[in-house]
Structures are given as structure tokens and as C-alpha cells.
């Protein structure tokens, strides 16, 4: 059973004062996230990532479609006891200390003040908030608030953690801490659903990602699948290849490089299937040393998707 499930989820905001018109922030989002996934929810600014997270937290209501978390509709209060949420650019109560804030939230989950304090201490240690935890939050920097925000999202040992731009405002050390924390959550079997602009983080942390462009789901899948989809071709390393044989197959490859006596690296375009060529080379006496897909990074794939979506829009507008 999926931990997070949306079907045809859409949200239209009304814009304009005199004649309000609907602005589609999210359209027809159908998505499933399985237990234990570290799911990266990616997209450029204004893609609808935060809107989706707000819908999943029922901070806003959908224009159409449904959403479920842990098998129950998102409005179910009992589900909220099993999830954690870090909003984008969080803000808390100025006159409370970090410790008091966490105890306050822990008590909302039914923990005693004493238990809340113990949890607060452990989590603040984990996210790197030191003695300043006894300062009022109005004295905190943006990065420190972000750390407190992450701690409050974990105060109830949630089964599912929703993080909206968790790396935002953090210094390199903070980013590393959060990356390690997400991996730790994954190792504990928890599900992490996070939105991010930082694709290298998504590539390093996520087993599955979705790319959202202008409110539409452009693509979803495992990082490996998606980067393989955008494969730039194959690199075939062959030994015992004669000059004549190389001449014969040359037209089918992008380029070739001599790496040693009779040993060549042949790069095939994605349109050329490697299997017939391998068979032909083997029949002619050459030996295949290795075959590897030449993959693009998640960033390459992301940029391709965003461009493709923009071109589609141009075409539909022109027609």
C-alpha cells in the first residue's frame, strides 16, 4: 500500500481583484510514494511543489482530486500524529526558546513535558543547535531556524516526513548534517518526501523522484531509470580490433578512441542498439571488454524536461 497517494489532485488559485480568474498552480497530479522511499519532489520555482505539500498537510483545500497519507484522507487528524512537516522558510514564535517550542509541539502529540524535554534535547543535538537552544527564537539566524524547523518535524518520531526545501538557508555544514539525517531516516525505514532545487542532493539521497513543471507532473521514476532514459549512448571497450574492422563499423558510432594496442573505446549514439554490433565484432574475432551506458546527470535530465515542457507550451499556444 502506498504511503502517499494522490489522484488527479489539482489546485486553482484565483487571481485578479475585479474579475478573479483561476490560476492553475497544480494540475491533475497522480502520484504514489511507497514506504521507505526517499522521494525527491523537484521542479523550478512556481512549479507547484509547495502547493502540493500544503495540500498534503491540508493547509489548503484541493480544487479537485484526492490525496491520502498512510491510507487515510489528508484531513484525518489521527494521521498527523504519524507524520512530520517542515514548511518552506519556517517561522516560529519569537518569544519562545527553541527548547520550549519543541516541548510545546511534543505535548501536542501527547507526550509529557518531561518526555518532550528529553526529545527536544536529543533532536536539537542531532540538528546541531547548541547552547543557544535556551535563547528566544527571535535571536536566531535563518539557518538556525531551519535547523529548529527540522527538529520540530521529527519530534514525534514520524513514519513519514515531509520536508519543503530542507537545505534552504543552511551553510555547507548544515547541508551535510541534513543529508546525513535524511539517510539516517531512510535507514530507519521511514519515508521521506522532500522538495528541493538542489539536484545534486536529490541525486545523492533519493531513490525516486518526480519532476513538476508549471503545475504538471512531467515525469516520475527512480533516479537510475530517469537518468538512463536520458542516456547519451553507450561506451563499448573492445580488444583485438583490427584497423579494417574499425573502418567497417565506424559509421555506426559517434566517435572512437584508441586506448592501447588493438584496444578501442567506441562511443555509440543512443539510437544504435549495441547488441548487433557486439555480435558482429565478436564474430570478427574482437573481444568485448566492457559495455556501459553513458548517462546524463539528474540535472541534465531536469533541464531537458523543463525545456521540453516550455516548448510544448509554445507549440500549443501557436496552434
Amino acid at each position, binding site marked *: 500500500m502506498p504511503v502517499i497517494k494522490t489522484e488527479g489532485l489539482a489546485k486553482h*488559485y484565483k487571481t485578479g481583484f475585479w474579475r478573479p480568474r483561476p490560476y492553475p498552480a497544480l494540475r491533475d497530479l497522480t502520484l504514489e510514494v511507497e514506504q521507505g522511499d526517499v522521494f525527491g519532489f523537484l521542479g523550478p520555482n512556481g512549479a507547484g511543489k509547495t502547493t502540493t505539500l*500544503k495540500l498534503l*498537510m*491540508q*493547509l*489548503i*483545500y484541493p480544487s479537485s482530486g484526492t490525496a491520502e497519507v498512510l491510507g487515510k484522507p489528508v484531513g484525518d*487528524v*489521527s494521521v*498527523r*500524529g504519524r*507524520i*512530520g*512537516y*517542515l*514548511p518552506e*522558510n*519556517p*517561522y*516560529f*514564535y*519569537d*518569544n*519562545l526558546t527553541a527548547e*520550549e517550542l519543541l516541548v*510545546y*509541539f511534543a*505535548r*501536542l*502529540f*501527547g507526550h509529557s513535558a518531561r518526555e518532550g524535554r528529553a526529545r527536544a534535547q536529543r533532536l536539537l543535538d542531532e540538528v546541531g543547535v547548541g547552547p543557544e537552544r535556551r535563547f*528566544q527564537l527571535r535571536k536566531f539566524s535563518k539557518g538556525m531556524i531551519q535547523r529548529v*524547523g527540522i527538529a*520540530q*518535524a521529527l519530534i514525534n518520531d514520524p513514519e513519514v516526513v*515531509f520536508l519543503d526545501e530542507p537545505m534552504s538557508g543552511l551553510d555547507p555544514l548544515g547541508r551535510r548534517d541534513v543529508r546525513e539525517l535524511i539517510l539516517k531516516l531512510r535507514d530507519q525505514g521511514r519515508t521521506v518526501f522532500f522538495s528541493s532545487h538542489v539536484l545534486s542532493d536529490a541525486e545523492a539521497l533519493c531513490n525516486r523522484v518526480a519532476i513538476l513543471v508549471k503545475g504538471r507532473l512531467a515525469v516520475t521514476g527512480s533516479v537510475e531509470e530517469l537518468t538512463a532514459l536520458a542516456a547519451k549512448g553507450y561506451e563499448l571497450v573492445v580488444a583485438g580490433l583490427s584497423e579494417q574492422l574499425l573502418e567497417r563499423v565506424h559509421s555506426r558510432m559517434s566517435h572512437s578512441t584508441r586506448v592501447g594496442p588493438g584496444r578501442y573505446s567506441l562511443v555509440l549514439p543512443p539510437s544504435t542498439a549495441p547488441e548487433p554490433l557486439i555480435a558482429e565484432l565478436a564474430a570478427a574475432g574482437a573481444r568485448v571488454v566492457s559495455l556501459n551506458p553513458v548517462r546524463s546527470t539528474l540535472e541534465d535530465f531536469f533541464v531537458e524536461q523543463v525545456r521540453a515542457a516550455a516548448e510544448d507550451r509554445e507549440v500549443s499556444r501557436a496552434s
Partner: protein
Amino acid sequence: MKAIGIIAGGVFRDSIRDRIAYGLVFFAVLLIAASFLLAQLTAGQDVKIIKDLGLAASSMIGLFIAVFFGIGLVTKEVERRSIYSLLSKPVTRSQFIVGKYIGLVMTLLINLSVMAIALYLVLAYFDWVTPASVKAAWESSALDPRMLKAFALIGVELMVMTAVTLFFSTFSSSFLSAVLAAGVYIVGHFGDDLKHLDVTVNSWLLPVLGRAAYYVMPNLSRLDVKAAVVHAEPITGAYMAVAALSSGLYILTLLVGATIIFSRRDLQ
């Protein structure tokens, strides 16, 4: 119920430490103390001046705190997005509204108590330094316990105004909420005049509108017994009970309305 208590405690803890609230209460205490000096300049009216100024200062400063912090209960929470973390916890929107309301009322009642104690201390000192022959001319004693009735109804008025501000803040901006709440306060103090507008105005429409406003707006003039207390007029327990009960019903209606509106609102 537990969630409401925890939210109320959080609001109380946050607002009781707010520098603006401190400043306002300090200002009220200063004003009450200053009334002592002002009383020296008047002959025969001294104790009335202190009571008048003290009660008025407590009421006005309390109103400022109720409106200023009442706006923050919902509007600022939404504008600053602090509400996102809170509502992602096992808390319903109605628990949020009621918890916020109770938390601010607790803060207001503590602040009002501080102002009442300050006024009684000033009056106690005045009573101590005033010769018995002068005291004999006073309508009521300096430490007249009836003043507590005035403070109690100021407390009820502040509870009504907190509910009014909270209600407006569930659907309008901070500024608009403050303006609307100020409007309700002003109109609310002319409740009886609005009801009998036909006596003073030669129009068919205005008395109808006045009567409509009378039934919709809270009758805050009924909660204002400051002058009666200062002039030692009797305020019966029945009067207090009816005023408190009708205000309670009004508060309940506003909280239900606020909950309904807020439960359907998108928190963008």
C-alpha cells in the same frame, strides 16, 4: 480539550513575554501612579480622579493589548507562516481558534490584575496620607471593593473585544481587523443610543439601521460601570450576571463563526 490547553499555554507564554505588552502595562501603571499627582491639584475630587483615571487607563491599555495581540492570533500566524507547523500537528482548526483565544484571555486577565493591584496600591497610599476629616467627605472609601466589579466587567469587555478581533482576523488583514475591531468598540459603546435612534433622528432608515446594529454589535456600554463605581452607585449581582452571561453568549457565537470561517480557509 488537551490540545486547546496546550495551545492556550503556548500563546500565554509567548504573549506574556512580549515587550510591547510589558511596555503597555508599564505605561498603564505609570498613568495610574501619575493620577496620584493629578489628584493633588484638585480639591475634594482627588480620590475620584485617581479611580477614574486608573479604571480608564486599565480599560484602554487592556483594549490595546486585546486588539493588537488579537490580530496576531490568526492573521500574523498566517502571514508569518508559523501556523503551518502548528496545524500539521494533531490539532483541528477549531482547537487552534479556541486555544488561541483562551491563551490571550489568560494574558489579558493577568495584565488587568497587575493594573488593578497598581491602582489599589496607589489608592491605599492615598488613603494612608489623607487626614480622616477629608476622608469623611468621600462618597466611598478609597479601597472600595466595588471597584473589583468594574475591573471584572472590564475583563469581560476585553474578552468580548478579543473574540471580535479574533473573528475578524480569520478572514481579513491585520490592518482591516484592527479597524473593524475599533469600529465595533466605538459602536458597541453607543448600544442604547442606537436602539432608540428614532427619538433623536427624523428618518425612517437610520433608526432601522441603528436597531440592526444594536442587535448585531455587542452592547459594550452595559459593561462600562466605571462612572457608577466611582460615584458609589450600586451595581447588583444580577446586573453583573446578566452582563457576563450575554457577553458569554456573544463570545461563543463569535468563536463558532470564527471556527466555521477559518475551517474553510486556504492558508496560503
